[in-house]
């Protein structure tokens, strides 16, 4: 039950945005319509790697209702050939990133199944699709490269002329020599090769856009799913060279994001071409299958890790060799998230004196990879936590004890890590102690023997993680507050909820300062009549950044209001006090409300803040039961203790944790984007083939908080939203491996499907029957 119930129109709701969403009054991207609009359908490559020999649109153009057909030629003519990739740092040996072109529709060559090749616009979506089948495309097939390890091997077919060895970037972090020296004197080295599998973000709302061109001032109105309007404008502008102030981006409700919405997709640019050429608004709504094929994917990292320990189980050094599959083209966020985020938290929650990591990006004939809930953070945490649990098992040390022995201690914070990061604050022993108690870690052996009596396998897994949240690409976050004549305060922010509940939490932040009910604050996350600097919602940053600025702006509004009230009341500002929406003078009856003030003159203020990175941390413990006859895993218990600093809304934090753990569990037990290695076809392009978590997969999660205030954020807030993913991969896989380790299995890659577990278990037991 939510611990914050608001009253909206006489109804108790846990979030202020809920009322419209539960009554069907939300407005998602496909819900917009404009008079005279045309409908778009993309023709997509049905092969993974081929030269486009010719495209014949003659018959399709004659189909009734067709208004235009556009191809890569049009994209090249428009100059829409390169999106932005945030790879603005140097790599190994000062290497510069090799960022290949990607015309908004494929030109000359297709590089993955589902790449847009042509766009048909017609009076109806069905007519556009009908006509698209009349387009004849001749291809000449090229060798298909799916496996990233094969892609970077010398001699493999190359995707882009500008990307030798299919390697757009190499990077290294840490001290290689010191690490090698530490490994040389280690008493024990544990090694694992781990894959953080490629998954599909699959927010439930398919991508969509509705774009209109205004020839009078060469501007575009773009209705689209976003995580924040600034990022969308910046990326669209980079792609199309249309100035940001000529792009009116409109979004109201966004049906989930998880990183997938942070990209300005080539499809949007292609629709801009059609809208301009036809002079009519053009609407495109993706099907789910198109989404599977062409939304950005997540993860896709192969990590070879080694951890060196001394004879007492103290960590001496860790070394990683990291290969990140980027898909056919570099997405805006893919490279940076899979390099920067792991580097930032390369030491995990541990004191590891020497660290070294080598990253290599690979391009393959697959959909581009970008950020997905955690964006590299779950991957690095998974690698470290698997190594630590593996070391504990090899050395016969309790997995919690080994962690505890190596924790960064509370007095060490702020802690500077060997890769130059400064962790702000944490109480890791406290987090662990609480988690062990909550999980009844000591009572596990009894639960184990109870399970064993049923013939099933049981395992317990732990994961103790930290991650970077809060910082963004924009130099600061701005929030504007404007008081209406009715006293309702409108709060403008460019952070855009895709389900996180900003309308509630941001309102709460300002409401607390203004001492007015949160429902008197209207949060607006999308507008084109004013410009605010600020980050999109992603990377667990919004409460740390924009949310905190809501507080700052509200304080500023009170100060500003005091001087306006002083004028109105004819007294000195120092004589004015504020409380509960009212400015008061020293004498009784001398007062003016926010509404009254706003009726006299404009009451508007902009707040801003820059806070840097906060480091939420936590410990998750999972217990699983595996049925060896079928390989089915049941998550029997799941406990979390999290330190996300000062919590603004506990219900929303819990909800974020639930969702993130579910996405982690989805990756662990079934989600996997699988391309056929020969043909490059995506084998999991529908919900009938791609596993999605369903009701009942997770037990009710037992949760506790163990907050230490952030020392970076003035309100003590740390980011959250992704940490459930970050911790759950390790906790769940460690639990499964703990269950099967007595059979001699020390590692299995995700997804741990029933079939995979049965195959491995029965092979070890010699019970496989063929």
């Amino acid at each position, binding site marked *: 039950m939510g611990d914050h119930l608001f009253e909206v129109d006489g109804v108790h709701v846990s979030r202020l945005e809920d009322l419209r969403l539960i009554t069907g009054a939300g407005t998602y991207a496909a819900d917009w319509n404009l008079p005279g609009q045309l409908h778009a359908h993309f023709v997509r490559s049905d092969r993974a790697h081929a030269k486009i020999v010719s495209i014949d649109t003659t018959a399709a153009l004659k189909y009734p209702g067709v208004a235009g057909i556009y191809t890569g030629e049009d994209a090249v003519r428009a100059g829409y050939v390169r999106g932005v990739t945030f790879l603005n740092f140097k790599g190994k040996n000062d290497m510069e990133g090799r960022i290949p072109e990607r015309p908004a529709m494929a030109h000359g060559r297709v590089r993955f199944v589902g790449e847009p090749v042509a766009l048909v616009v017609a009076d109806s979506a*069905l007519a556009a699709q*009908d006509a698209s*089948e009349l387009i004849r495309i001749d291809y000449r097939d090229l060798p298909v490269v799916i496996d990233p390890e094969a892609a970077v091997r010398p001699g493999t077919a190359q995707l882009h002329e500008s990307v030798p060895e299919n390697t757009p970037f190499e990077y290294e972090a840490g001290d290689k020599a010191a690490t090698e020296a530490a490994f040389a004197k280690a008493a024990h080295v544990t090694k694992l090769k781990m894959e953080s599998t490629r998954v599909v973000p699959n927010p439930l709302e398919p991508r969509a856009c509705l774009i209109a061109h205004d020839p009078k001032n060469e501007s575009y109105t773009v209705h689209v799913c976003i995580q924040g309007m600034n990022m969308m404008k910046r990326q669209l502008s980079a792609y199309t060279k249309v100035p940001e102030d000529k792009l009116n981006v409109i979004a109201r409700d966004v049906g989930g994001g998880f990183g997938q919405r942070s990209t300005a997709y080539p499809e949007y640019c292609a629709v801009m071409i059609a809208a301009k050429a036809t002079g009519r608004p053009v609407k495109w709504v993706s099907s789910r299958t198109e989404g599977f094929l062409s939304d950005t994917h997540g993860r896709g990292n192969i990590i070879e890790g080694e951890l060196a320990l001394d004879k007492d189980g103290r960590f001496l050094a860790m070394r990683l060799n990291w290969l990140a599959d980027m898909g056919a083209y570099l997405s805006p966020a893919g490279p940076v998230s899979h390099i920067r985020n792991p580097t930032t938290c390369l030491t995990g929650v541990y004191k590891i004196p020497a660290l070294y990591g080598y990253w290599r990006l690979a391009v393959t004939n697959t959909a581009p990879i970008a950020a997905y809930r955690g964006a590299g953070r779950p991957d690095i945490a998974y690698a470290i936590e698997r190594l630590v649990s593996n070391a504990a098992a090899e050395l016969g040390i309790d997995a919690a004890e080994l962690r505890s022995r190596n924790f960064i201690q509370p007095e060490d914070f702020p802690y500077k890590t060997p890769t130059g990061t400064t962790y702000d604050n944490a109480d890791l022993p406290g987090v662990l102690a609480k988690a062990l108690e909550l999980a009844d870690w000591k009572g596990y052996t009894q639960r184990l023997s109870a399970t064993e009596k049923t013939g099933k396998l049981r395992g317990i897994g732990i994961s103790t993680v930290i991650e970077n949240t809060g910082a963004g690409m924009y130099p600061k976050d701005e929030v504007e507050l404007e008081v209406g004549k009715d006293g309702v305060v409108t709060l403008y922010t460019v952070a855009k909820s895709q389900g996180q509940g900003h309308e509630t939490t941001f309102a709460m932040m300002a409401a607390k300062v203004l001492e007015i009910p949160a429902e008197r604050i209207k949060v607006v996350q999308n507008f084109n009549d004013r410009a605010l600097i600020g980050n999109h919602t992603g990377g667990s940053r919004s409460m740390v950044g924009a949310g905190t600025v809501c507080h700052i702006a509200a304080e500023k509004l009170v100060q500003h209001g005091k001087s306006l009230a002083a004028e109105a009341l004819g007294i000195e500002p120092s004589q004015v006090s504020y409380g509960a929406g009212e400015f008061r003078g020293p004498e009784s009856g001398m007062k003016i409300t926010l509404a009254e003030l706003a009726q006299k003159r404009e009451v508007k203020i902009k707040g801003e803040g820059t806070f840097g990175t906060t480091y939420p941390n936590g410990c998750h413990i999972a217990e699983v039961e595996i049925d060896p*006859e*079928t*390989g089915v895993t049941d998550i029997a218990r799941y406990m979390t203790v999290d330190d996300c600093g000062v919590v603004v809304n506990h219900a929303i934090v819990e909800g974020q944790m639930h969702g993130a753990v579910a996405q982690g569990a989805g990756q662990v037990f*079934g989600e*996997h984007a*699988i391309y056929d290695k020969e043909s490059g076809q995506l*084998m*999991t392009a529908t*919900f*009938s*083939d*791609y*596993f*999605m978590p369903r009701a009942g997969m997770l037990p009710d999660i037992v949760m506790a908080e163990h907050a230490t205030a952030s020392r970076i954020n003035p309100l003590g807030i740390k980011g959250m939203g992704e940490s459930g993913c970050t911790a759950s991969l390790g906790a769940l896989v460690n639990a499964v491996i703990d269950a099967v380790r007595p059979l001699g299995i020390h590692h299995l890659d995700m997804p741990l*499907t*029933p*079939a995979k577990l*049965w*195959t491995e278990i*029965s092979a070890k037991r010699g019970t*496989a*029957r*063929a």
Partner: protein
Amino acid sequence: MYSFNYVKPGSLKEVNDFLASNPEARPLAGGMTLIPTLKARLAQPSHLVDISALEELKGIEVRNGALVIGAGTTHAEVARSTHVRDAIPALAELAFHIGDPAVRNCGTIGGSVANNDPAADYPAGVLALGATVVTNRREIAADDFFQGMFTTALEPGELVVRISFPKPRRAAYEKFAHPASGYAMTGVFVAQTNGGIRVAVTGAGPGVFRWSEAEAALAKAFNVAAVASLTMPAADLNEDIHGSREYRANLVRVLTKRAVARLAGR
């Protein structure tokens, strides 16, 4: 979807006549398979002939000791029916595990049986129970009806009208749902019928089939041990990204065991 014409004749006879004169027309019952197929543009019928409201295809009754279910009966109706629950509870249970509630509210037994999807649930029940499929032309024994993946004894224009299930002594259905689609990755229906033990397997192979070895073993001793020692040959079973043929062979054995355990106790 490609364009088609929708017609809704008022009687079975009109349907027969329409299908006879329009070879590219397809009957539409619950549409739970056909409409997704059309949406994916994998079929292009000239007409859809809506048979969902035909009285001749409705009704569940017990007649001469047999449970007779009209082809147009939805899965939800079968699952809820007291006739079915009393006569063959395993069949009600099978129906309750098809798809999801919305699918069960539309999908029909006739559609499922006529389509013969290799991963559908009903074919296992129909085959294991030794049911008779009654069409607009004739009666077909289950053993003759199912002929492999999406293939049945139905001739063009021939429609399933009802299915008659002789009451078994006992029966049980065990299903292992496909992790993504919810279809039967493997489903095993075990029935002790008056004609002997029948074990039908769906999902694992290219079409529903009877596991004769298990039937023979269970005829000798109807207990879990009789099945536990058997081996299901994997060679002819399905294999895909969700499981090898060996895994499916294992599921066949495990699910048979579990069905027998439910009927016989351990």
